[in-house]
């Protein structure tokens, strides 16, 4: 085993290049002086009492920088569309073959499913009180379905329901933004009542929990679609090869 084969010259040169870049960037970054100005986040922390949410990160994500989250949801939606475009093959002719499924795995995964989905819903609706929120809870729900697919390869989700949830929650999110425009004269305005005294309670923060619930539904259905495409892809391939 000679060294040249294990570590080609190109790799050695590139590692030297990387280290040189590392050292120069480090040299620059070590001189980072402390910020002369007040961070915008500190101002948000002071403002945060007004939105009456216990979790400041949530109010930044859904309210102070709300349009970012609309964009983020759109990015996920586009990625899902792209994955569906790539992996949904309408020309596949081979028949679906019912695969062997294990009874214990099947029952066990179904039992776990409800618990995991419940946990996801908890994370979503407590997004403005504790760490977590629509994105995290939505993905937790999607992992429940991943478990189901792994345990039972014949499982398939109802695409019409998923599409309905995805479209309706997305449109509702944009409508919430537009209602803010009509009622508060500012897009994404917090038009629901949000008295400061309610801070820490489940119903508080005006539109913020509403937005996170909509985001949770959307992310949950999109991620489930992604997971289904990725796990079904393998299934179809095996069936077609056989």
């Amino acid at each position, binding site marked *: 085993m000679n060294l040249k084969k294990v570590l080609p010259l190109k790799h050695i040169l590139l590692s030297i290049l990387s280290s040189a870049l590392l050292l120069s960037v480090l040299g620059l970054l070590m001189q980072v002086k402390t910020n002369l100005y007040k961070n915008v986040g500190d101002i948000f922390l002071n403002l945060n009492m007004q939105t009456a949410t216990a979790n400041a990160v949530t109010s930044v994500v859904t309210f102070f920088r709300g349009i970012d989250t609309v964009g983020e949801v759109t990015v996920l939606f586009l990625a899902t569309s792209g994955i569906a475009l790539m992996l949904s093959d309408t020309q596949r002719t081979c028949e679906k073959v019912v695969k062997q499924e294990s009874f214990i795995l099947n029952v066990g995964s179904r039992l776990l499913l409800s618990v995991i989905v419940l946990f996801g819903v908890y994370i979503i609706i407590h997004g403005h009180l504790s*760490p977590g929120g629509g994105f995290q809870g939505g993905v937790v729900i*999607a992992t429940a379905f991943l478990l189901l697919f792994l345990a039972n390869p014949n499982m398939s989700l109802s695409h019409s329901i998923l599409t309905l949830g995805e479209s309706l929650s997305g449109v509702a999110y944009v409508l919430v933004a537009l209602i803010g425009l009509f009622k508060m004269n500012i897009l994404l305005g917090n038009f629901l009542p949000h008295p400061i005294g309610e801070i820490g309670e489940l119903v508080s923060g005006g539109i913020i929990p509403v937005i996170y619930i909509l985001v949770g539904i959307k992310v949950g259905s999109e991620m489930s679609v992604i997971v289904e495409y990725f796990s079904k892809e393998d299934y179809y391939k095996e069936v077609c090869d056989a």
Partner: protein
Amino acid sequence: MIGLLILFTFLAIITVALGAILSKDITQSVMLFMGVGLGSVVLFFIFQAPDVALTEAVIGTGLSTAVFLLGIMHTSQEEMES
């Protein structure tokens, strides 16, 4: 204490990341990448960012790895030698 904890976590992450890059087996490299994510979760928690820690745990580590593993199930498992 916190400083030492951060230092050792960083050392662990860097080792695991090097392993992930240098490993010839793709599945192994994905699993090691999951190690990087887990180390990041610990660090985010230390940095008082529980929201980011939860997100990284669920999305950056959990679902990413699952998607990677499902993805490499039907592409080649090993790097082809040229």
